[in-house]
């Protein structure tokens, strides 16, 4: 089985319109009309947003959670925003109708298997966002898709109801046991891998979760694709400010840029122990 390498899609820089903003659990879901972005989007891409207050210079990156048609607008992108921190609080507080500077789609997307193999998708918190469009894409290719959706509690869990509609089986895990199994991803990944017989594992979440998934995948002889989240000051490959320690194909330790060499990287290529 081969995994197609990710291709770089051209990004556009547009003034987007915030069409709709709604709170779901602990997160805020934003629907943004950003012409040119939906057409170029592939699962695993992200967008970079400039804050309205130009004294904040670093950009904020958000996974594209969904592309959906919007009457009269063509298509819009949906983002999941954790309303913490300067950027998240600002975005979450914007009223519908606001203009937002958006660059995207950016980054290397998830590589898709060429054959219809069994795939396991593991996501935690808001970071699970890019796995939903990925699940649809994999299903279109005839892959059997199993999903693990995790979060601190029910409020920090992305819509598992929806996931249940699009994939074969969903395991829900919360740290406090408020819904689904009580525990962490690391505690259920072995069983999920064994049950799904997955050949490819896709993961999106905090670094320790990605590390656990990548290690388990390797132990099972599965490929893993991890969506690595680090702050990306420019998000466009210019500043070298988003280092991710990796090992090259040649076995040599290198430092990749999350925004342009990633953010989706092979789990067995990331030096997790060196990633702060």
């Amino acid at each position: 089985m081969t995994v197609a390498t990710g291709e770089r899609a051209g990004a556009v820089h547009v003034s987007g319109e915030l069409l709709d903003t709604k709170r779901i659990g602990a997160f805020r879901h934003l629907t943004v009309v950003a012409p040119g972005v939906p057409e170029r989007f592939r699962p695993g891409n992200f967008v970079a947003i400039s804050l309205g207050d130009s004294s904040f210079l670093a950009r904020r990156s958000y996974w594209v959670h969904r592309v959906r048609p919007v009457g009269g607008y063509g298509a819009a992108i949906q983002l999941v925003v954790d309303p913490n921190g300067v950027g998240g609080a600002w975005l979450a507080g914007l009223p519908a109708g606001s203009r937002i500077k958006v660059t995207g789609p950016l980054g290397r997307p998830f590589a898709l298997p060429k054959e219809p193999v069994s795939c396991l998708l593991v996501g935690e918190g808001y970071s699970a966002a890019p796995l939903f469009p990925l699940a649809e894409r994999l299903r279109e290719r005839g892959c059997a898709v199993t999903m693990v959706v995790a979060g601190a509690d029910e409020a920090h869990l992305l819509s598992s109801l929806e996931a249940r509609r699009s994939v074969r089986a969903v395991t829900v895990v919360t740290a406090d046991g408020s819904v689904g199994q009580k525990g962490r991803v690391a505690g259920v990944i072995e069983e999920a891998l064994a049950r799904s017989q997955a050949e490819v594992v896709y993961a999106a979440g905090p670094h320790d979760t990605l590390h656990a998934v990548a290690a388990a995948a390797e132990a099972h002889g599965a490929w893993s694709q991890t969506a690595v989240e680090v702050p990306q000051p420019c998000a466009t490959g210019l500043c070298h400010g988003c280092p991710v320690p990796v090992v090259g194909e040649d076995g040599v330790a290198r430092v990749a840029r999350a925004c342009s060499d990633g953010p989706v990287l092979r789990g067995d290529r990331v030096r997790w122990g060196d990633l702060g």
Partner: protein
Amino acid sequence: MTVELAGLTLANPLLVASGCGGTGRELVPCLGEQGLAALGGFVTRSITLDARAGGPAPRVVETPSGLLHATGLPNPGIDLFLATELPWLARQDTRVVVSVAGRTIGEYAELARRLGRSPGLAAIEVNVDALETGSGEPFQAASVVAAVKRDLPRGLPVLVKIRPDLVRVVETVRVVLEAGADAVVVGTAQPAALPDGRPAGLSGPAVRPLALRCVTEVCAAFPAAQVVGGGGIATAADARSFLAAGAVAVQVGAALLHDPTTAARLAADLTQELV
């Protein structure tokens, strides 16, 4: 309308500052149809003799109206740069200025020798701040410039990037000009520290008035000198204030990290201005 800088003809007075344009390829989609040809010139990130992986995270940290950066100069080293990056840059129909950084004066000289034998670059920009000892000392900067000039096999112009430190900037410019610099770039990042105490540079609008003051003083002290101004330029009005102070050209850097389309906008605006 074009501008003359150190014997080079630039399509317009806008250069992308070192370290803010990636390898150049990342900037292309943000520059419109012309690509890098839209720029007066492109300054590469600083290239060192050996490959450098760069420093630990965080490397770039936001601070009000500025960015603190301590990247550790990640670059592939001169050999790989000459083999993989410069040939592409040379085909882009812009003035390619290669920024060089060394730990010692000897390393700068070696970099100059290697670059002097390579086709495709228009000039060298010396990043004197990378010196392991005596960085910021005017006489050290002059020694680096003298070594680079001596070892350049052909008449490649040498630009020297100087820290906009008001106390020493005029003296530093005087000695590097005496040492043979063809132009000076006033607008390196201000020395600062990351929240964890590591040394860093501060760039962005926060430093613009400081840099403008330094450019003004340098241009007044050396009316015949070729001065490139930079530091926090984000709008065409910012750029014009540096040109009005006497700069021949300007560099835009940190603004690209916030909005990568800034360079194309400024270049178009400044080109119009000159016509």
